[in-house]
């Protein structure tokens, strides 16, 4: 609407802050994520038991004062395994997204900057990647490469490249026609310098906001692949593989599947809440009075 409230004297950062501080969902996400990160960092200090220690006498114990979340088929403490499992999930999600971001942004910026046939080709391939289910792509890659931490990260990173490239490409095309980029070219700056110094900083905030949403999806894919049996091999505790073990005992030991399920849910939810609030805040279409 063309209502003239344009000249409102509220500066940009404080405006963003207003949007955040009034969004209760943002605070919920931030709090949850802070707790999960603390738990994974402090794992050795707060885990009540050794996550790998087997205890044949205490197999499949229901939750109790000694084992808050019960024990698994080998008598291992579920709570301790859950706490250590947070490290794998966060690490895999973070590293995979970092790799995907680096490769995806490079592809997106170069394709957008050079344009023409290269751009068409690259975007065509990326559209195909985007429309192929991430889980199946990850499953295929992980199945072909074999189950290991490294291959898991590679498989997940590949599934998340296409969205980053898309997000980096669109603003690159808009930016390359702007005066300051034109001026840089007139001054004889090379394309690498222009892309790195003039274009990248202008789109990095969009990319970072989206990366929190996509890290949520990376963690989801990691858990799903681990559940299918394509994740980090045992005995390393991961949430997905814990749920798989719990699923095998689902009729008589509900706690094995339920607690890791809630852990995954809360982690992914925290990232989604944060990413959502951030995106709302920078998206001018959804912002406003």
């Amino acid at each position: 609407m063309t209502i003239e409230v344009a000249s409102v004297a509220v500066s940009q950062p404080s405006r963003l802050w207003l949007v955040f501080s009034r969004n209760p969902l943002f605070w919920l996400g931030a709090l949850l994520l802070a707790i999960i990160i603390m738990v994974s960092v402090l794992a050795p200090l707060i885990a009540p038991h050794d996550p790998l220690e087997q205890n044949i006498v205490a197999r499949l114990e229901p939750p109790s004062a000694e084992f808050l979340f019960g024990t698994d088929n080998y008598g291992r403490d579920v709570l301790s395994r859950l706490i250590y499992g947070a490290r794998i999930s966060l690490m895999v999600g973070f590293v995979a997204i970092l790799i995907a971001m680096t490769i995806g942004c490079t592809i997106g910026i170069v394709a957008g900057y050079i344009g023409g046939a290269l751009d068409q080709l690259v975007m065509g391939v990326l559209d195909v990647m985007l429309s192929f289910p991430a889980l199946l792509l990850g499953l295929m890659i992980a199945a072909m490469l074999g189950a290991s931490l490294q291959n898991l990260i590679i498989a997940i990173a590949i599934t998340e490249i296409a969205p980053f490239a898309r997000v980096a490409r669109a603003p690159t095309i808009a930016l390359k026609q702007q005066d300051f980029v034109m001026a840089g070219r007139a001054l004889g700056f090379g394309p690498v310098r222009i892309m790195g110094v003039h274009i990248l900083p202008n789109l990095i905030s969009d990319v970072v906001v989206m990366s929190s949403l996509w890290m949520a999806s990376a963690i989801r894919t990691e858990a799903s692949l681990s559940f299918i049996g394509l994740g980090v091999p045992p005995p390393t505790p991961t949430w997905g593989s814990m749920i798989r073990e719990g699923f095998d005992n689902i009729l008589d030991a509900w706690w094995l599947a339920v607690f890791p399920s809630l852990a995954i849910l809360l982690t992914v939810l925290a990232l989604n809440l944060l990413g959502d609030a951030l995106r709302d805040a920078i998206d001018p279409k959804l912002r406003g009075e």
Partner: protein
Amino acid sequence: MISFACKRLLLAIPTLFVMLTAIFVLVRLVPGDAASVILGDQATEASLRAMRARLGLDQPIQVQYLHFLRDVLTGNLGRSLSSGRTVVQEVLLVLPSTIQLTLAAITIGIVLGLPLGILAALGRNSWIDYVSRLVSLVGLSFPAFVSGILLLIIFAIHLGWFPVLTSDSTDPLERLRSLALPALNLGLILMAYVVRVTRSSMLGVLGEDYIRTARAKGVTPMRLVMRHALRNGLIPVVTVVGLYFGTLIGNSVLTEIIFNRPGLGKLIFGALNSRDYTLLEGLMIIFAICVIVVNTLTDITYGLIDPRVKYK
């Protein structure tokens, strides 16, 4: 309209080739080679050679590629290594069950998601908006196997309302009962997507100038939403449901495993566990074709809703 549909179909052909090529390359990327993966570490050199010859891996790569394309285009996707049936036979066997599940899930997702998304947009920043945003974010955060397990524990094991395992009974009521939880599992996740997209799309549309024009004409609130906002707001929703099809297939793999329900997903899981790489490759090709077909149909639907598309 027809020419638009034809043009869109033609566009799908290069996409199909890119996808097929990607699958071909991916399968050949396997460290070692497919023969040793299939036969395991203990295979003799002779049996490896025989397996390579059987898979055509002893040929030069470009010949392999041409054979691969020829086979795919003639509908010959090879035979399952474990069952001996052709991949196409295997798929046709379980396809009805997957289609049932998918259609039920899409129905649930749209019937619940669309109204909730519209309500959230109309009552922006009201309690219903926050509740529906939270519900949809929770839905988006569930890996399909996590929500499946929770549904299974609560409604099948604890409350006993639904069977724990999918029954193969022919009684339609019994079949419906065993379809309910898997369909709900997939449908609720789809609902989360639909709520989100509907909300933001309707918010965008409700702020448009032509909505104000309609109000200035004296259009009542109900008609404003149904006649003016919804059709415009639906355009991105169609895209999302179409794009979600890929995720739906991925989630159906997990759902079918959890509810032990026959279907394409269960087939993949079996192929993975028995290292049936021919079946796996064949399934990927079929999924790729499905995804492309659905994307194309989505674009054509888009053209039906938005008059501007046809003339571009």
